């Protein structure tokens, strides 16, 4: 066995890895949409007027953020069917990814909200806007430039955690790489390619986020200090 990379073998396994990557990306997309929606709801909940909602959602946030994604995946994969919710592994995986990163997204939203000067809220109230209007017309447009880069980083982190889905039998990129490696008794090429694909994509996404950040700074230069 030579440890030198076999290029032909690497090319041969690319289609299989591509199929795995596609599943990783599908889980990333569903997870991201869920993370953004749920994250915004959680953000609203931690600022809610009712104390019970505030407390409950803060606890949920802390709990989900400080427990391993892998164990949360096992919970969804093994417990949900027992209570009658039969989800496919990839659906359960996307759901948990979305929920996990929603808690991180909520934190990003909260930080963005804190960057909106308090006087803005007072003026909006003085102008007679209702709370929902203040949120929609005053707060959200101002917190968006602060929040977008942070959300981008959260979604990159979500993408990088998709390999954990292999533990609940989702045939995503890492899972495929391991299977290909086991079938051919050659782990070097599939694992190296898997790492390379993750590295390339997350660097590309990070580049996109940086570009977005510099654009937003140009659009709202006074925001720079708030970050």
């Amino acid at each position, binding site marked *: *066995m030579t*440890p030198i990379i076999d290029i032909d073998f690497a090319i041969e396994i690319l289609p299989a890895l591509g199929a795995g990557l596609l599943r990783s990306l599908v889980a990333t997309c569903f997870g991201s949409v869920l993370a953004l929606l749920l994250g915004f709801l959680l953000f609203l909940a931690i600022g809610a007027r009712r104390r019970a909602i505030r407390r409950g959602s803060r606890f949920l946030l*802390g*709990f989900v*953020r*400080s*427990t*391993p*994604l*892998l*164990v*949360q995946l*096992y*919970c969804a994969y*093994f*417990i949900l069917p*027992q209570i009658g919710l039969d989800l496919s592994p990839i659906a359960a995986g996307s759901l948990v990814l979305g929920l996990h990163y929603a808690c991180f997204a909520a934190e990003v939203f909260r930080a963005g909200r804190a960057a909106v000067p308090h006087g803005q809220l007072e003026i909006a109230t003085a102008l007679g806007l209702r709370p929902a209007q203040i949120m929609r017309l005053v707060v959200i447009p101002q917190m968006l430039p602060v929040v977008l880069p942070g959300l981008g980083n959260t979604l990159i982190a979500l993408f*990088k*955690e*998709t*390999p*954990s889905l*292999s*533990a609940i039998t989702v045939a995503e990129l*890492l899972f495929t*790489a*391991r299977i290909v*490696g086991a079938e051919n008794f050659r*782990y*070097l090429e599939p*694992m*190296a390619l*898997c*790492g390379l694909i*993750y*590295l390339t994509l*997350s*660097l590309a996404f*990070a580049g996109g986020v940086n570009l977005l950040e510099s654009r937003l700074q140009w659009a709202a230069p006074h925001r720079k200090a708030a970050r």
Partner: protein
Amino acid sequence: MALLIKAAPDLLSGLLVTLLIGAGAAVLATAAAFVAGLASHARSRAVRVPARIYIEVFRGTSALVQLYFLFYVLPLLGVLLPAWAVGILGLGLCIGAYGAVVVTAAVGAVPPGQKEAAAALGLRPMQAMRLVVLPQALRVMLPQFGNLSVELLKATALVSLITLHDLTFEAQMFNQETLHTAEAFLTILVVYYLLAQGIMRGFGVLQARFDVGARGGHVL
């Protein structure tokens, strides 16, 4: 519940493995974070570039991919490590890369006047770093190191996938033997949560200690 008590010794030994791997990885991560973090401030490119590459590679791929790479590929290259060493090495290097960014930012945030004053007082660069810059930077780093420690704790669950018998692995065994799924996983979720709370408390105490003499801070 009775089943859980019967399984307690197994779960406790799993907890011990989780804690040992976590502690080992924390030591390695701290070392890697300071070495790579300070190296990315170095004047020479030969030092800066490898540090940047290390940081980008380990932050750009996920911890599980790194663990599998070390676990499956290192033996092919003639390096045979036991699984626990792979766990410590993989998690330590991964979290270390995130820590390096924290160190870089914190050292960069120390006002340049401090370094100039140190030089004017005749301190050598190493002395200035050790006596003037690092103590101030440490204060900025601590809260983020706290968050990274919780991330590390969460990441230790991944070592169950490279055959280590940690807390998550033991819970899976318990689940397979008894089919009491909810007890198995919800119990360890609470255990992880409590451990994370402990870590946060610990860092809170440390932060209070290190805040001595901070502007606007309280003196112990």
